[in-house]
């Protein structure tokens, strides 16, 4: 077996803490909001970088989106990744999970020889968590999801992962190649390596592929490849609350609270 080849799928998302909901229209105000690497993807990146530290590996980033995502992705090069592949084409726009996972799978096939695909648990702007299993299905490879810790056995050519499940955990083993989604907050993502920074932001290698580069089937990408449509948007109804402020010293407040609590339960 040659060197381990790892790809981390990364999404660029608007920073959640900068998004404000307009109190009048209740629509998202994205004006002036900066973008970043989806925070859960940083945990995937860190887990992949640790494997690179341990075994040595070729570590690539795969993302999908407009060319303006490039500077955000370069931060991953400075963290220790080797190469960036950005899938960028107007025809990819409007993709739901089915079209997104198909397009990413075509990207991974074109990179070729990939052993392990790492992904974040979910995206902070979509939060569906359905990309990792969907991608594994298109690639017809095994999957490990919600993984907090991983071990690679290069002799047996298998991966063991610790998976968080309700009320506990399990240790699962799958053969390589496989896709692994990393549990959010499973580790502490490293900072950029300053000795790599100049290279990462000036020379660092990036490949941009469009739809024809990937030889995709047109009916499988973008809007045509997306079975789901958003038919309506609505305001979440906010439940009316009493908003009564209780005042006084700690004892007085405690006495009033106790009365309220005892009348409720």
């Amino acid at each position: 077996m040659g060197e381990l080849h790892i790809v981390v799928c990364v999404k660029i998302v608007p920073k959640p803490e900068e998004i404000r909901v307009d109190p009048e229209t209740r629509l998202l105000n994205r004006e002036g909001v900066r973008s970043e690497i989806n925070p859960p993807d940083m945990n995937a990146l860190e887990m992949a970088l640790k494997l690179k530290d341990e075994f040595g590996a070729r570590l690539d980033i795969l993302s999908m989106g407009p060319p303006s995502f490039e500077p955000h992705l370069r931060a991953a090069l400075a963290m220790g990744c080797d190469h960036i592949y950005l899938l960028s084409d107007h025809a990819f726009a409007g993709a739901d999970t089915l079209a997104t996972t198909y397009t990413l799978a075509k990207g991974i096939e074109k990179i070729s020889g990939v052993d392990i695909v790492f992904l974040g648990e979910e995206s902070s702007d979509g939060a569906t968590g359905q990309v990792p299993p969907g991608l594994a299905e298109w690639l017809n490879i095994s999957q490990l999801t919600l993984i907090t810790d991983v071990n690679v056995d290069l002799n047996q050519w298998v991966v063991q992962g610790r998976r968080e499940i309700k009320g506990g955990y399990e240790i699962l083993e799958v053969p390589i190649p496989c896709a692994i989604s990393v549990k959010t907050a499973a580790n502490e993502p490293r900072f950029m390596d300053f000795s790599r920074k100049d290279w990462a932001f000036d020379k660092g290698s990036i490949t941009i592929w469009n739809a024809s580069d990937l030889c995709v089937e047109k009916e499988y990408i973008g809007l045509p490849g997306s079975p789901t449509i958003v038919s309506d948007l609505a305001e979440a109804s906010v439940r009316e609350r009493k908003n009564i402020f209780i005042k006084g010293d700690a004892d007085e407040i405690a006495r009033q609270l106790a009365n309220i609590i005892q009348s409720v339960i």
Partner: protein
Amino acid sequence: MVKSIYGVEEESKIILVYIEHTKGKIENVSLEMLSKGRELADQTGWELKGLVVGYDVDSLATAVLENGADGVILANHWLLENFTVDAYSHVVYSILLDLKPSIFLLGATANGRDLAGRLAVRLRTGLNADCTDLNINLDTGVLVCEVSGFGSGILAMIEAPIHRPQMATVRPGVFSIQENRLARSGEVYAYKVELNKDQIQTRIIEQIIAEEVDLTSVPVLVAGGRGVSGNFEALYRLAELLGGEVGATRPPVDDGYIERERQIGQTGVVCSPQLAICCGISGAFHFVVGIEKADIVISINSDPDAPIFEFSDYCVVGNVDSVLPALEEVLLANKEVVYG
């Protein structure tokens, strides 16, 4: 446009609910989906069926019928004793192709999401994840899924009009379980599972499932945020005193002060307690959705401008460290008066 493996013209008017179970007990989210599914079936005149996959699961059929299903499909096989996505997706896929339900619902749990994500791609169909409401358009038979967007007050209605099955994962805790229903005299159908070991690539090396905390149905929730500075002891004492449980916002969970299964809100649990007491919680929208179903909300926060007060019935501007001990003292004293 991409075509699903089977289409609208081949569908059966069936709502199929995937019944998840652990150690012989059906997960609440599956019962919640059966209750909602019953409502949808009554509106449309369609059939509601439960699908139970596992080993030695015959005994669960009665509970599925008692919770509103018109029929149960059992897929029993020794290789299905533990969940592996390889085996389960293989079996469920062949059942879906036989039955061709219009709608297929799963819980948005770890295993439910794994299974749904793979099956939707295999079926070339749409998948609406983590839905907070479901409706069927009675004119078109299209399932309309409500999904809450981006930690905000925006709800998106999403549908897959021409792909089948219409798949959705449902967030635990959003539907309530209708109890005391008469068992329906439905058919229990044992599906003939064809599966061999070579089809399973996943090996389970070890599995630990401890006593789980289920916050979705607790009567009293005492929740802590950044403002409790990682000290949850007073919250646990108060919860015990009131017969409740402790929950948290995301930061204390991320910082490791409390288990992730106690996280409340959009990426955590949605609770519907009689009473929620929020301690040191600022009130970000993705937390607030988790307590919106609470009958009464009390909040304690030292910041008078904290957004949490907008979402509270009773608001205390004060320090959690001084209010909680005083409250505990009064509650204990009152208890002595009653029982002493």
